[in-house]
């Protein structure tokens, strides 16, 4: 059996060098151990939590950059524009406080669960994922990054270095609604995030709505998003049509039936929009 190593690089170049030979990236560890049961790791573990530059949220004029090891508690405590209110709400719904204190935003994306709490809000925010390897750095949209359950576009030698959210118009507001069987520590049955910008007259200028846990990968609702611009914001919630959710493909599981998920998602979409246009 291969002798797996536990590596704790102190800088990004060191991390990328370590990754060159493959390995499992470890940050908050909240998905790492549960996925492994009692078995020993068979490959190198590359722990990226000792790289200071990755633990930063940088709010610039054109974008907000969330470093790879920024935790959900960091996001919840950060001063961010109202467009991020959905993301901040999601930050308080990821497990309990002890998960939020160590679990990372980027890790939530890399784990690529269909029910990842962080995905709908970041999809709605038009987030991009920055990936680095020794060969260079690239940035792709979150929708391109997430390929399927537990599958992403990250190459084995790549590290997600940041999640980058391009600026929304000032005044854009975000929301997030999670539906589960209990209040805390719950995998959602369905969840929705909306981000909407309106002009001075209250008309929608830009809207994004994403639904999680209702398809293999969380999905935006393009038909709805195309209809909303130009509409008075207050009319947005009631404009939601059943066909807007046709892009979803929910399954039956222990948390709920597919039929229920679609119906609940439609209700949540309406309510998520109502929160941001009220």
């Amino acid at each position, binding site marked *: 059996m291969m*002798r*797996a*190593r*536990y*590596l*704790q*690089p*102190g800088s990004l170049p060191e991390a990328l060098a370590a990754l060159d030979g493959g390995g499992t990236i*470890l940050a*908050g*560890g*909240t998905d*790492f*151990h*549960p996925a492994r*049961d*009692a*078995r*020993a*790791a068979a490959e*190198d*573990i590359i*722990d990226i*939590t*000792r790289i200071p530059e990755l633990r930063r949220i940088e709010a610039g004029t054109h974008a907000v950059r969330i470093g790879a090891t920024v935790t959900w*508690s960091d996001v919840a405590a950060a001063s961010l524009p109202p467009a991020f209110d959905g993301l901040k709400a999601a930050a*308080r719904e990821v*497990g*309990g*406080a*002890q*998960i939020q*204190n*160590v679990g990372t935003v980027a890790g939530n994306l890399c784990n690529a669960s269909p029910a990842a709490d962080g995905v709908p809000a970041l999809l709605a925010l038009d987030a991009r994922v920055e990936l680095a390897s020794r060969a260079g750095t690239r940035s792709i949209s979150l929708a391109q990054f997430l390929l399927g359950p537990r599958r992403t576009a990250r190459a084995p030698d790549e590290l997600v270095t940041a999640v980058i959210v391009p600026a929304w118009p000032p005044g854009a507001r975000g929301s997030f609604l999670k*539906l589960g*069987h*209990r*209040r*805390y*520590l*719950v*995998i959602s*049955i369905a969840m929705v995030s909306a981000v909407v910008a309106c002009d001075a007259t209250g008309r929608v200028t830009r809207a994004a709505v994403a639904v999680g846990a209702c398809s293999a990968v969380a999905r935006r609702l393009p038909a709805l998003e195309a209809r909303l611009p130009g509409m008075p914001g207050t009319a947005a919630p009631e404009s939601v049509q059943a066909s807007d959710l046709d892009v979803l493909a929910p399954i039956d*599981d*222990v948390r*709920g*039936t597919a*039929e*229920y998920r679609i*119906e*609940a998602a439609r*209700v*949540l979409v309406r309510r998520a929009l109502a929160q941001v246009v009220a």
Partner: protein
Amino acid sequence: MNRPSDLPAQALTAVALTVNGRQVELHCAPAKRLAYALREELGLTGTKLGCDAGDCGACTVLVDGRQACACLMPVAQAAGRTVVTVEGLAPDGRLNRLQRAFLRHGAAQCGICTPGMLMAATDLLTRNPTPTEAEVRDALGGVLCRCTGYRKIIDAVLATATAESDAAPPAAGNAVGHRLPRLDGPAKVTGTEAFGADRAPAGALFLRVIRSPHPRARFTIGDLAAFCRSHPAVEGVITAADVPENSFAVFPTPKDQPVLADGHVRFRGEAVLGLIGEETAIRAIPAEAVPIAWEVLPALETPEQALAATGDWLHEFAPENVLCRGRVVRGDAHGALAGAAFTAEGEFRTGHVEHAYIEPEAGYAEVFDDGGRTRVRVWACTQTPYMDKEEVARVLRLAPADVQVVPSAIGGGFGGKLDVSVQPLLAVAAWKMRRPVRMVYTRAESMVSTTKRHPARIRARLGCDRNGHLVAVDFAGDFNTGAYASWGSTVANRVPVHASGPYAVPNVRALTRAVFTHNAIAGAFRGFGVPQACIATEALMDDLAMQCGQDRLAFRLRNALRAGGVTATGQTLTASVGMARCLEVLAPAWQGALDAVGVRNQAAAGTPLRHGAGIACMWYGIGNTVIANPSTMTIGLNRRGRFMLYNGAQEIGQGTYTIMPQIAADALGVPVTLIDQIHGDTDRTEDAGKSSASRQTFVSGNAARLAALDLRRRLCEMIGLTPAAALELDGTTLVGREAGVVRRLEIGALATDARGDVASGRGTFNPPTVPLDADGQGVPYATYGFAAQIAEVEVDVELGTVRVLHVHAAHDVGRAINPTLVEGQIHGGIAQGLGLALMEEYVSGRTDNLHDYLIPTAGDIPPITTFIVEDPEPIAPYGAKGVGEPALIATAPAIFGAIRHATGVRVDTAPCTPDRLLRLLRGGAR
């Protein structure tokens, strides 16, 4: 900074960190998880492991002041950081403010979640010393508790911001009725309490069990010698061939469950083979590597299939796959229903429910020489040390005297630890290896292999006359008992007795069957089938009330059993029948709830929210159904002037280690602070039966009282006074006073017995019952608990979600020996009832963890108002009856009644999940 770069993940390295203010250097694999490092390298076993996956929060510690799951953090990530565990809260042995508040409020019951709760609360209070309740819930939301219902934990955290202080212990003669903080509490809030996984002899081997992945299969074991050669970590293997008597069960017949399956498995998760060796190495072996050839057979997945499976029996002794039939018939139910003015009927279903105690089963066994006699010692978490002793002796074909069972502290039981689990496996392994062997179930193993609440399918019909007096109940229930008998017959026999509810009903026909299937074993779970039955019959009570045009509480009060009333088994209840009183004390809360519903619904007009209130009643026979269940207690006075209570009434969080001394103290007439205890070691205490059937307060409490009175009589004799004398201890001088006479006896130099006591007393109590005849007529229980609960709910009719806003609970407990503990039982029962009603359904293979199997969190339990009704039972200790199971039974039907009040739909399936409720609201079928 220490940076163990480039070191093998499994190789040892040095990690320096600060733990509880002390600089420590750990020498372990950098990937080793902090929880294991704390427990194994530093001996800090106060940090508990409940799930190993971040789902339960039991392992919560502070890392640089913030709460984190120690089960998820590689020890390398803790390097250079500051870690605080529960042991760090009272470094000088003086409990801190939060710990003291936990004790005052009864916030620790079994104590397994307590360290995690304390650490989560400490994180909050350090940053925010005066939090709101919502902030407390947010901070504690990641720690699961299965005992308390969270309310007393929340109260304790909030109390740290107040001037509240500890009360003085009760004076002599005043212990009963006193809110004495639990006597085993300090160990629970400091992390020193030893649970099943917290203790093992040095050098103990680890036992890992390989389990069936199939619900029904035949199997053959291949070349184990070759397997062992290719897996040198395996130091021993146990199979069915190593078990001298390969069968066990809770009752004498049938002993149907093998310790290790012998060529045939009957449920997914059945134990097949054990691997013994060093833990990490043994756990790392893939199950597929073990040479077992499976021949998968079609499983009987439902009772319907099992009942229809002609000639295909799970067990030869149970033709038609029926383990047991229960029957109570009185009068002519069918005739009375035909003539009833109003009738209501329905079919109701409930699913598998998992106990979900936070402590997975764990323990160790060792073979030892006891003065030339070879004996086996088993340390394990259990609700029944004496049964464990019998079963381990049976399996090893030893005399019971050759087995010693030492119960660990138990991190929740609720009936799930009333069957043996690790005990016989460990004993067989230790016997074969002649070395100590320990084991700890994984969460998945605990869930897949241990018992569940019986899924039920119940058809019931109730009828009343024009005035709303019940005339008949016709009840038929099938209970899916799974692959082995366990407690299935208890469920089948207990349910018919209770099927007509706490009401006077002249005509009753109640039939039950416990049906074998290839499902998880269904066994004991808080209420033994009565909660399922209550869901059905209380829904029908609402139907009848509506048909009669009567208020739901008034309708129940009209029919309530009262002293002098006759039950369905023909038993005349002569005393302690507090049903009507429970309803009467709840009447103002009921009116308040109905008024509040009106106001809330008005305020919610135009929204998808609908409010409702529901009410349900229950009764529950205390102790075993007819079957003898005696308890024996002994108590001595030693030369140091202290009493020693040899207390075999197993503590499972409910408080037997507190209330037995309270009872004994008052019977002796001495302060409870003079009583020490030895707990449940089968070598040192007598059999006080099982912690089941809500029996300990009533049965063992009586034994404790009788033992104390016996000792009192002897002491009075020794001092030359009559038993009416008042006794006290002045150091080592026994002082007796009677009618102006004062006698003193120095006891410090008196002769002692083998236990070191100068005098001792013994008490035994077995509840008087009369066997049931073929129609179930007789006296199944000596006394009954009664309760009524009100639930107020808010239903979102667009999503099918239900939020419980308040529960009001009135319980006739006869006498509350310790009101704080009684409230704790009620809160915890309500939390489990809420889970049963709204979210809990175990599906083997799909919910074998604590993130797919959901139990209520701190955010799900509403405020609970408790009304303790004390209608004393004349033959009970100070009048006290049990409350453990009664606490849960009325909750789900009260919630379902409230949902119906809010929406008009009758809930016929538990749990009432959002998708199920939405389907009902849309007019759909089950």
